[in-house]
Every structure is written in structure tokens, then in C-alpha cells.
């Protein structure tokens, strides 16, 4: 996993709620057996018509090329497909901001170096407004101090993140490295377990 510390970029606003993982990456693109290349089909059916001509959708507007996706509440609901996190990352996103995330998606994002930031709905609106007024408006995300700032207005919020996951992101570690280091405890647990 790549390390994440700080990012300064414009945002891509997607002010829709309940964006499910079937929209992020439709099931027909889940036939691959590798993790790479899903970015081409990110939001496929919102981006393209059935004949592959582009639709009027924000990712087809070249002004919006930032690495932070800002979306309405309950982002990533539905299927557990990690392909959704892979597609966002492969497309170039490094941060997703929403007023709250579906649990499985949030976990998947964190396991792939994609930082999900939960902000109050007021601040989410500030982000939408600032990008609407000026699509080139920059936003700074600093994981070390857990702060997201709209640079034009200097508005910011501090966000929560599990200290363990923060350490993983900053160092590029994943859970498997950690769990493997606990093998002794796991084996001891198994010895005492009775399963019916």
C-alpha cells in the first residue's frame, strides 16, 4: 500500500446521496482476476451511454481533475465489492469526503490507501459551494494533524480516524502485516476454542 500523508488538490463534487457500489463499478466489470484497471469503468453508466458516447457527467468535464471526491451521505452503500475502492484509486482519487460512509466501503478504502473523511454536513456543503463557485479552488488534507481545509476561505474541520488505521496509512502498512505478527496469540486462542 502507498503511503499517505498530505494532499493539496481541487475536488470533484458529486452531490448525490446513497451512491452505491453498483454505480461506482457495475457488476459486469467484476470479471477481472486482478486489482488493476478498474478506473476506466469507474461510474461507467453515469459516464457513458450504452454506445460508449460520453454523458453529461462531472468526470467528463476536464476542469474537474482533482484527487478528492466529495459526495453526499451514505457513500459506498450496497455490495461489499472492494473493486469500488480499487476503481476510485485507479482513476486517481486519494481521498473521498462525505457526511458518512457505508461501513464495508470505508474499511475497503482504508485497506487500499484511499482515505475516507467523514465531515459534518455543513462542511460538506461548504465544499460543494466552494467548488461550484470556483472549480479550481484547492483543498488541503493533512492526515498527520487530521485536518481538511478549503484554502480560499480557510474554513477547516478536524476529522476522526482510528489511530491504528492512521498509522497504517502514514507508513503504508496493511492489516495483514500486523495480523501475521500476532500468529502466536491466534494459535493460542485456537487451542482453547471449542466449536460446535
Amino acid at each position, binding site marked *: 500500500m502507498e503511503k499517505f500523508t498530505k494532499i493539496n488538490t481541487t475536488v470533484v463534487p458529486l452531490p448525490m446521496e*446513497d451512491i452505491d457500489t453498483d454505480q461506482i463499478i457495475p457488476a459486469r466489470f467484476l470479471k*477481472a482476476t486482478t486489482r488493476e484497471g478498474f478506473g476506466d469503468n469507474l461510474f461507467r453508466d453515469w459516464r457513458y451511454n450504452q454506445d460508449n458516447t460520453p454523458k453529461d457527467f462531472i468526470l467528463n468535464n476536464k476542469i474537474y481533475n482533482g484527487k478528492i471526491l466529495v459526495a453526499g451521505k451514505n457513500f459506498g452503500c450496497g455490495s461489499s465489492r*472492494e473493486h469500488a475502492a480499487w476503481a476510485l484509486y485507479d482513476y486517481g482519487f486519494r481521498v473521498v469526503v462525505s457526511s458518512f460512509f457505508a461501513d464495508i466501503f470505508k474499511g475497503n478504502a482504508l485497506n487500499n490507501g484511499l482515505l475516507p473523511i467523514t465531515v459534518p454536513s455543513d462542511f460538506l456543503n461548504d465544499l460543494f459551494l466552494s467548488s461550484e463557485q470556483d472549480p479550481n479552488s484547492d483543498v488541503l488534507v493533512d492526515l498527520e494533524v487530521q485536518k481538511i481545509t478549503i484554502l480560499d476561505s480557510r474554513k477547516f474541520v478536524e476529522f476522526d480516524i482510528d489511530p491504528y488505521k492512521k498509522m497504517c496509512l502514514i507508513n503504508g502498512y496493511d492489516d495483514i502485516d500486523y*495480523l501475521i505478527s*500476532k500468529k502466536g496469540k491466534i494459535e493460542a486462542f485456537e487451542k482453547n476454542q471449542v466449536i460446535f
Partner: protein
Amino acid sequence: MKKTLFDKIWEQHVVDTVDGGRNIIYIDKHFIHEVTSPQAFAGLEKRGVPLFRKEKILATADHNVPTLNQHLPIVDPLSRTQVNTLIKNCEKFGVELYGLGHQYQGIVHVIGPELGITRPGMTIVCGDSHTSTHGAFGSIAFGIGTSQVEQVMTTQCLLLQKPKRMRITIDGELQNGVLSKDIILYILSKLTASGGTGYFIEYAGSTIRSLSMEARMTICNMSIEMGARGGLIAPDEKTFNYIKGRKFAPQGEQFDKAVTFWKTLFTDEDAQFEREYNFKAEDITPMVTYGTNPGMGIKITEAIPEAIDPNNTKSYDKSLKYMNFKTGNSLIGQKINFVFIGSCTNSRIEDLRLVADFVKGKSKASNTTVWIVPGSKQVQLQAQEEGLDKVFEAAGFELREPGCSACLGMNEDKIPKGEYCISTSNRNFEGRQGQGARTILASPLMAAATAVTGKIVDVRELL
């Protein structure tokens, strides 16, 4: 301290606690399938680590398999490669596979319970969000991403933050024609598609107790549609009787010992939940969805409501535009050309029996195409043994071979653009059943009624 059922099972599986509060949770059973496992197997090879406990993994092919001619090679080259990759990985790593053609093949959440693998008090995971289904047996079961599939493969554990606890209690007697699918669609319409986020739900009350195991599975299955990690129901005599004698269930004295332990799995009186809801069974009617998330449901007698938040109607407007429905309209009388009876929500033998009972002596409407996709090979064989296949054939319904099928439209079973499909599955997301397809979620009885009338009706009028 008083404990909930969830607390008891969780605590029995804590291996260790990490700084910041995360628990290392031991996983008793890991189901895998062809779509979310290949990258995890590849990860194992890349790290050069072995599969830690291969006997705790069971594989099947369900998401991306055809539901016709399963004895022939898969036509679609990408699907064929994916299914073959599962076969190769299972051979290489020594994992038991119930693949195409195997007598136990089927949708992962159907085969676990029917083989007696799913049992009370267990922790169960799978790279599929509907793993919550197994909670009907009083187990902690939930869906995980592929990175977590790899974690379980390498260590049989997951690093998890303990979810909050919610209890939903339903008391009273259900009306005739109202099924457990209606109960969960009703709960969803009250709590919305995000009302359970951050929680693990226990379903309780006299109505839940009165349900069969299969009906309970339908409820737990859709817990994820509220955003909950999972849902569970305390085991009781029905649970024990369901498990008894199944292929992998404990036998003889072991079974009796198991029951003694299973009887300790209940929520203590006065145990605390962070959130509680109470509903009355009498208030529940047949349900249908009108929008593009499972929380957008109404009673069949109701009209499509206004957006919940009048200041923020963007998502609601997009949803109704996609469905080509209007606020204030009723769905009764809506012409429907496609009917799908299947998925891990409603593809078990009881679902098929209910549908067969209803359609016996009737035939499908001239405009409808009706697919019945059994949840497993065992369900398919049982249906044939009971002669349900003959009933379906006489009615013009097509009984196919097992798989996830049109629930997610990964294989050829897709609904054409713009068409409505009444579906017993679990998600009505945009394009879920095919690009531009419009899904209306409902119970197997409502689907059967639509199949024979060609339009949406209140099934109670036909009983």
C-alpha cells in the same frame, strides 16, 4: 454485566485488543466465491505466505455462472476464466470447492445453512455483503472486502472495531399474504437505506419467533440494505431442529452438547442496546419498492411519497426519473414484463413452494417472462422431487439452474433497458439487473401474482 447475544458471541471470539480499541476477531467459517477471491489468492502468492486454515474455508461458484446449460463450458470467456481461476486456486491451496456440477453447488448463503455448516455462536465471513443471511442462526456473520478475505486466508482473523448494537422488535400476527420479505422491506422503509450504518442488529419479538428458519434468513439477509454490518436472531428450537441431521451438523452426543451451548446464546434481560425500534406485525402489508435503493419502499396500498428532505431532492428526483414514476402515484396496475424469483434473499425451497402453491392451475400472463432461479442444486433437486418443476412448466415459468443470476446481472440473465422487473432479490439500484433496467423489490408471492396478471396487484386480493 448484562450482555446482548451479539456481545456474547463477539467476546467469545476476541483474540486480542489493539491500541485504539480494535479487536482481533477469530473467524470460524470463511466462504469464498469466484468474484471476490482471485485477488486475495494472488495476494497470498505475492507475499509468499501459506493459507493458514484451509479446512475453515469453503468455496462455491455462484455470482458469475450461467443458469442454463451448466454442464457445458461457460460461453463468456471472462466468466470462464474467473470460474476456472477459482478451480485452480482451490486445487493449489487445497480448499474444498462445490463448483458447477457439484451436488452441493449454489448461492453461498443458501448452501451454508442447508448443509448444516452455518450454526449458532459462530463467526462467519464471506466477500459478499449478504453474508448477514447466516445471522438467522444466531451467528455473527458479515460481508468483507477482498483485502479482508486475504487477511482471513493468512491468519483466520480480522481486525475490527466493534459495531454498536441495535434491536428491532416485531410483535403480533402477520396478515395473510404478508411474508418475511415484506417485514424487512417495511423496516427498511422506516429506517432508510442508511438507518443501520454502524450497527449490528438483533431481530426479536413474537413475530420473528413465529417465522421459519428460511423466513428468518430473508430478514437477516437484507440487514446490509440498512447499512448494518449484519443482523442476527437468537437460536431456538426451530434453529436446532433445522440444523439436526444436516450433512455437516454435529451428530449424536455432539449435537446434544452443541444444543446445550446454543441455549446460552440469547440476550440477557435488561441488556443495553444503543438503539431500539418496535413495530407491530399487524401494520405490515405486502410491500413494493418504487425507487433505486431498498429503503424506498411503500405498502402496496400506498402512493409514492414526497422526498424525505424537501430541501435536498436531487437523489430522490434522479431516482424517480430513472424509474419513470411520479410522486403521488400508486404502483397497482403498473404493467410488468419481467419477473425474477431467486437470489440469496428468496430462492429457498419454501419460497419455491409458496410460488408453486399460488400458481398451481394458473398460467403466466402473455406479457411476462418469468425466471425462477433456485438457490442451490439441492433446492433444485428438491423442487423436482416435489413436482414443483411441473407446476412451473405448466404455468410457463422457467426453472433454471442455481446461481445469483439476475439479482446482480453479472451473467447473461439481464433485464433489458427501460423494462420493469418485479424481483424477489435485495437491491433495486440503478442498472443492478442490467443497464437501464428498473427493479421493483417484492416478496415471492407478490412476484408470483405479477407473473400471472402481468401487472402489479395486491396479492391479498388473489388469495
